[in-house]
């Protein structure tokens, strides 16, 4: 089989027209006057780039230095395949318009799905591996960063009352825990758990509570997240996702921004449906064991649900997947205790600790 083409010796820019013949073990290049220019053994022969329709085939050889051979007729790739028994990677020639694109796109979708599924499966196992000391340091950092210059509401009595309540809720818990509960001077109606046993109420939600049982319910719910290590899991999931998207989009300029976003992730992002249901369940169990009336979360959810149009007042607590009605029905059926969470005096102290109104 013979082809025509041209040859660059890599020393000058001269473009020498040549004839190329394919033999059993090598490809031979002849000048048009018949003189032998060189022989390229099939071993070591490679394509300089993918070949697309209408594109000349540029061949180089590992032992030929800077020399290159160019053949206009891309059928040489098939001949090479037959002769040399090796595929030359000219996949671009077989690419057939929309159909090819559709196949590739499906591949991307399937691969993304697989990686995301694997990430989701791996998170609970990875969470267990994070040492508790790391969690505590991370949690303290996140909470400090969140509070920022506004800081926390001081008032030792209120702090003691909240710790006492947390202690009561932990009694008889299967997983031992050590929680630190604080109120941040932030008007947002929100509460969140950070890794390492940190629970933060924002002043906005303390003002929103109409009974100590509502506070106890939210506290038990957030502590349940903490006991199940959901905050750490959420961080791992978000970091994993970010890495995945960076990798996909080819952004290797670093993950510098991620650290600053940890707080945002914990404060604003919702947990998944399963995490939320798990926390509801464990939260009510804790209330039952502590003998505290469990309807606090129900009344709070119902009241906030009615104000639902006001997005800024809608806590993360509500912005999750389990439907309202479903969640409230479930909680109603589970609460069995009837005791109070705090005495009226204690409740007053907590309400006033951040300069809020009493009652």
């Amino acid at each position, binding site marked *: 089989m013979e082809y025509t083409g041209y040859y660059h010796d890599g020393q*000058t*820019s001269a473009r020498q027209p040549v004839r190329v013949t394919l033999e059993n073990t090598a490809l031979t290049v002849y000048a048009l006057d018949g003189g032998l220019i060189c022989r390229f053994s099939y071993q070591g022969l490679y394509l300089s780039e*993918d070949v697309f329709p209408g*594109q000349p085939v540029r061949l180089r050889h590992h032992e030929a230095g800077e020399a290159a051979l160019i053949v206009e007729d891309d059928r040489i790739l098939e001949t090479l395949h037959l002769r040399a028994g090796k595929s030359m990677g000219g996949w671009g020639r077989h690419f057939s318009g929309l159909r*090819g694109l559709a196949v*590739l796109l499906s591949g991307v979708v399937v*691969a993304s799905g697989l990686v995301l599924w694997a990430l989701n499966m791996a998170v609970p196992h990875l969470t267990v591996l994070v040492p508790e000391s790391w969690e505590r340091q991370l949690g303290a950092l996140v909470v400090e960063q969140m509070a920022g210059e506004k800081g926390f509401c001081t008032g030792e009595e209120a702090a003691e009352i909240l710790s006492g309540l947390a202690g009561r809720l932990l009694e008889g818990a299967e997983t031992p825990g050590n929680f630190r509960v604080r109120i941040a001077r932030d008007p947002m109606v929100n509460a969140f758990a950070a890794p390492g046993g940190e629970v933060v109420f924002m002043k906005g939600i303390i003002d929103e509570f109409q009974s100590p049982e509502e506070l106890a319910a939210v506290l038990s719910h957030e502590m349940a997240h903490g006991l199940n290590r959901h905050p750490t899991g959420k961080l791992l999931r978000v970091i994993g996702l970010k890495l995945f998207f960076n990798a996909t989009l080819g*952004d290797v*300029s670093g993950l510098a921004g991620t650290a600053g976003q940890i707080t945002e992730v914990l404060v604003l992002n919702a947990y998944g449906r399963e995490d939320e249901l798990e926390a509801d369940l464990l939260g009510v169990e804790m209330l039952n064991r502590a003998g505290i009336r469990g309807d606090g979360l129900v009344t709070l959810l119902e009241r906030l649900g009615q104000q639902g149009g006001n997005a800024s007042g809608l806590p993360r607590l509500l912005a999750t997947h389990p439907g309202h009605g479903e969640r409230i029905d479930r909680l109603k059926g589970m609460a069995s205790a009837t005791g109070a969470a705090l005495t009226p005096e204690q409740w007053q102290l907590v309400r006033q600790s951040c300069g809020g109104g009493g009652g």
Partner: protein
Amino acid sequence: MENAPPGSRPPETASMEPPGGGELSLAHHGKTGELYAISLINVLYRILTLGVYHFWAKTRVRKYVWSQTSLQGERFEYTGRALEMLIGYALAMGILIPLVLAWQFLVQVLLVGSPGLGGLVSLPVYLGFIYLAGFARYSSLRYMLSRTRWRGIRFGLVGSPWNFALATLGYTTLLGMTMGLYWPMMQIHLSGAILNNLYFGDSLRVRFQTGTGGLFRKFLLFWGGAALLYFGIMVFIVVLFRLTTTEDSSQGALPLLQMAVPMLAVAGAVTGFSALWLAYRAAELRFLAAATRLEPAAGPGGQPPLVQVAVDFSTWEYIKFKMTNNAAMVLSLGMAYPWVLTRTMHFACKHLRLQGDPDLDALAQSSAPPPRTGEGLAEAFDLGGI
């Protein structure tokens, strides 16, 4: 760095009669669909390798773009290897990461109580970043050119990336001190620093030579226009605000007007500013091209040029082209990139004119060894490009 020889004052723009009367043909043969196929394969491999494929992906795209671009019917060739880029990146990261960590530790841990001192420490770091970005730009270009061949002959960029980095730092400082007015001079000096060091094999070199006055006058037009636009919009918003608040706006009589008109004004200002900027850029590109020639590499500077460079798009053509690209990128969340890249290559090849009739068969290969690794730092700074 080699600069224009001293002597007689160079002309404002080096436009002259096309040497030799002929013209070299430049063409791009790439198709959007093919580049999408390559991009999808790249995304697939990136996912499966958790991102490590990035360097192979980039190399693959370059090989495609280069091999679909031809000069006088001969296609360019990209011979860079992904592993070289990966090694360059690892080296750059090995230097950058400890530096950034040390700086962050200093500012966020040791100097946490004194923001003033933290700022003082950070200033040299920011200057350092500008310096390193200049270094990265030059060395990445040097790598890319050394891996670019035409008819088997390598391009090459001599000169020192450190000098270029220093120049970048100096000019950027001047830019800040002159409220941006130094921009055209910076572009001319930095273009010269690159182009006057650009060689093709051992036989041809680029010569960039021009004064700055003509471009500066054009920049002043843009700068003045932008300032007028800015103040105009500000006055418009303030007047509108006054007008609507003197009426009974506390009842929410005109909330829609109050909200929508300033937003429209801002959108209009952004579009107006972009158009002004692009109009200047079109003039700048024409100016820089006209100051660029190809000369024999041997012998003194100022020899008769073999090829005179020019770009021939009109200002309106350029504005339309860039605005369409930007709109496509924004509206598609970046997914239009292969389309934009193909379109850009077609546009560039159509409007870049190489006037002259040099003997292209007798050019000698470069005797300088090409750099062994490259672009790591550029990648770390996310300098973009193909």
